[in-house]
């Protein structure tokens, strides 16, 4: 697929907003005009207007229609069939318009634009933890689940999020063996922006007054091969009236004093979530129920690296 298409993933809301106020803001932008022109050439039913434009689209270099479908993710066989049709149409189009059809260079999947290229990026995963009598903790099984209805995803959902941390040096303790508190501002931001229940869908960050208790300590351990081991321990209590998360944190780090780099940073938060927020699909399953977060420093692979 990456050899045939220039593959791109992007956020849709500000590309083709559903509300008039934002639509006015973007209507003259070339990306919006390009996508709109393409959409208006699509068959009725495949282009959703008015409404969400979330989906998968196959587009010629000048916005020509090849294939596509809004909200397409639930039916893999349909997507495959559309991609095959798109490639057949492409062969006709490229001959007709004499497109160069040069080889597509191999690229490594990038991070979302707002963190791409930043020095210290944390990859945040959230997942429901198993419950004795609950629906979660299940992993997707392609043999059984491939044709399940789209809402079934809540059984095996997990989420990935990315945050850049400019003041990452706050996670490096000063010399000495005593436990030290990580800077409160840094820890509060970590809690507000990363410990969010978005396992099943979007939820906003925590307001400041939701921080009932947030503490993270760090302690130097023995050095290994010139690198300092660090242990992190903490606790959070977040509650905004509609939802809450109470969790215990434990983590490990590895600081290289020579390179002045925190080469490894890994935190796990395990706790209980309760309530619902925005589009996070918890209204029918408000808990309390166990939830887990893994926060790890992202190290970009080289272009040759496989199996990311």
């Amino acid at each position: 697929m990456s050899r045939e298409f220039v593959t791109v993933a992007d956020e849709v809301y500000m590309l083709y907003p559903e509300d008039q106020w934002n639509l006015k803001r973007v209507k003259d932008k070339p990306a919006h005009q390009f996508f709109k022109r393409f959409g208006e050439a699509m068959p009725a039913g495949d282009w959703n207007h008015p409404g969400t434009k979330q989906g998968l689209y196959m587009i010629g270099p000048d916005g020509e229609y090849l294939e596509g479908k809004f909200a397409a993710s639930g039916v893999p066989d349909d997507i495959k069939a559309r991609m095959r049709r798109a490639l057949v149409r492409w062969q006709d189009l490229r001959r007709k318009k004499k497109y160069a059809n040069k080889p597509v260079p191999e690229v490594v999947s990038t991070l979302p634009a707002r963190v791409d290229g930043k020095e210290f990026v944390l990859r945040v995963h959230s997942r429901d933890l198993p419950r004795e009598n609950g629906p979660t903790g299940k992993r997707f099984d392609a043999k059984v689940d491939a044709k399940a209805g789209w809402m079934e995803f809540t059984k095996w959902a997990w989420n990935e999020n990315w945050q850049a941390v400019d003041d990452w040096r706050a996670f490096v303790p000063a010399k000495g063996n005593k436990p030290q508190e990580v800077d409160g501002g840094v820890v509060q931001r970590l809690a507000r922006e990363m410990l969010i229940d978005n396992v099943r869908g979007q939820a906003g960050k925590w307001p400041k007054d939701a921080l009932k208790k947030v503490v993270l300590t760090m302690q130097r351990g023995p050095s290994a091969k010139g690198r300092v081991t660090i242990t992190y321990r903490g606790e959070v209590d977040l509650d905004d009236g509609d939802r809450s998360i109470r969790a215990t944190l434990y983590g490990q780090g590895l600081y290289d004093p020579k390179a002045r780099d925190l080469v490894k940073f890994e935190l796990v938060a395990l706790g209980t979530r309760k309530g619902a927020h925005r589009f996070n699909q918890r209204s029918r399953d408000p808990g309390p129920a166990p939830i887990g977060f893994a926060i790890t420093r992202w190290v970009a692979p080289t272009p040759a690296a496989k199996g990311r």
Partner: protein
Amino acid sequence: MLNTGMAMLLALTPQAPQPTADNFAKWRTFIQPSSTEQAYRDIGWRNELWPAVQEARRLGRPLLFWTMNGHPLGCT
């Protein structure tokens, strides 16, 4: 599917387990996506539509565009 170690951990812990030096790595692995779950990253996704359109025009190639509310590569 839970492995035996994780099943034993769950049997010994209350509803919200506590992360410790002993179980930290197991829980981290459990929460993080498996290679199957993150197979979408095997595709070389560019992260912004408009620069990708420019690239497609330079190459004379079609685009495959995946778009969601919230960036599909994360940050929801």
